[in-house]
């Protein structure tokens, strides 16, 4: 049975800081951000990894010379990564101070080679991502661990599908 799906990770440490600095705007603006809870860091890293994966797949679609089965597979898997990203983002609630901050730099995909190498690189990225999630899910609440485990399983299976598409 899935744990409570409504539970969300919140940046509580960051939200507590303005209490000490209220009425002291100048110093408050210069205050360093407090350390983030491990579950927030793990979720943030998982979101960044999914963003990079989406960028990689979009770049692969642009670079692909074959328009056949390879493109169908890449399109389908890109759609699943966008779903992963949506669900992970939905679990993170930022306090106003961080929510309005400038977003981080947009990830860029590495340079792409021929179609075969492109599929192999994506498969390797999927395997690395699923292995990373195995570590990250140890740091988060139960419902988020289940989501991360499921995403990790999806990405491990993606590597198989990409390898098959590369052989076809």
């Amino acid at each position, binding site marked *: *049975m*899935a*744990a409570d*799906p*409504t539970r969300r990770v919140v940046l509580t440490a960051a939200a507590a800081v303005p209490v000490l600095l209220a009425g002291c705007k100048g110093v408050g603006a210069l205050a360093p951000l407090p350390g983030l809870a491990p579950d927030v860091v793990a979720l943030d890293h998982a979101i960044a990894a999914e963003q990079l994966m989406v960028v990689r797949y979009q770049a692969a679609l642009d670079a692909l010379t074959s328009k056949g089965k390879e493109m169908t597979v890449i399109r*389908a*898997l890109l*759609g*699943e990564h*966008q*779903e*992963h990203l*949506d*669900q992970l*983002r*939905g*679990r993170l609630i930022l306090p106003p101070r961080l929510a309005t901050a400038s977003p981080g730099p947009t990830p860029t995909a590495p340079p792409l080679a021929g179609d075969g190498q492109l599929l192999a690189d994506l498969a390797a990225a999927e395997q690395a991502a*699923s292995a990373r*999630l*195995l570590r990250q*899910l*140890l740091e988060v609440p*139960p*419902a988020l*661990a*289940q*989501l*991360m*485990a*499921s*995403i*990790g*399983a*999806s990405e*491990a*299976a*993606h*590597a*198989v*599908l990409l390898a098959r598409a590369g052989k076809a």
Partner: protein
Amino acid sequence: MRAAEDQAGRGGRRTSRTAQAAVAALQVALAAEQAASYGYGIVGAHLTGTKFSDASTGWVAHQRARDQLIQMISARGARPRPAAVAYQLPIGVRTGADAVALAILLEHQVTAAYLDLVAQPDPVLREFGARRMQAAAVRAARWGGRSQAFPGLPASALQAGHGR
């Protein structure tokens, strides 16, 4: 003194509840692995060549997982639930294609059965469950199963408005 005893009592009850939840999650995974081991016997009986080899490999993987789960349950002082003598298959199997479809179904069921284990606070159990979910999803893909964005997760675990 009384307060300290109360606190110790509450802590003990919490530990006990956590241990019971862990055993219950292990038993769910064990039942799925036992069913998959039985099912793979049927799968293998309808296949030849490399597909038969794949079925044998899958059967061994489920047997090993079953043995590990039995060990984990026993180590917690509980009794592993025995396997059934026979299982009702989710689909009829008459051809090789049926057998492959059954293998995919079994892997999907196994993936979902580890979900409770992944929710346990014990990092060893959590990682074990997540690894088994990945292994089952990979086997399902190797059998030709369709890709899934959230293998094992029920729709109710996903947040509305955030895709699926």
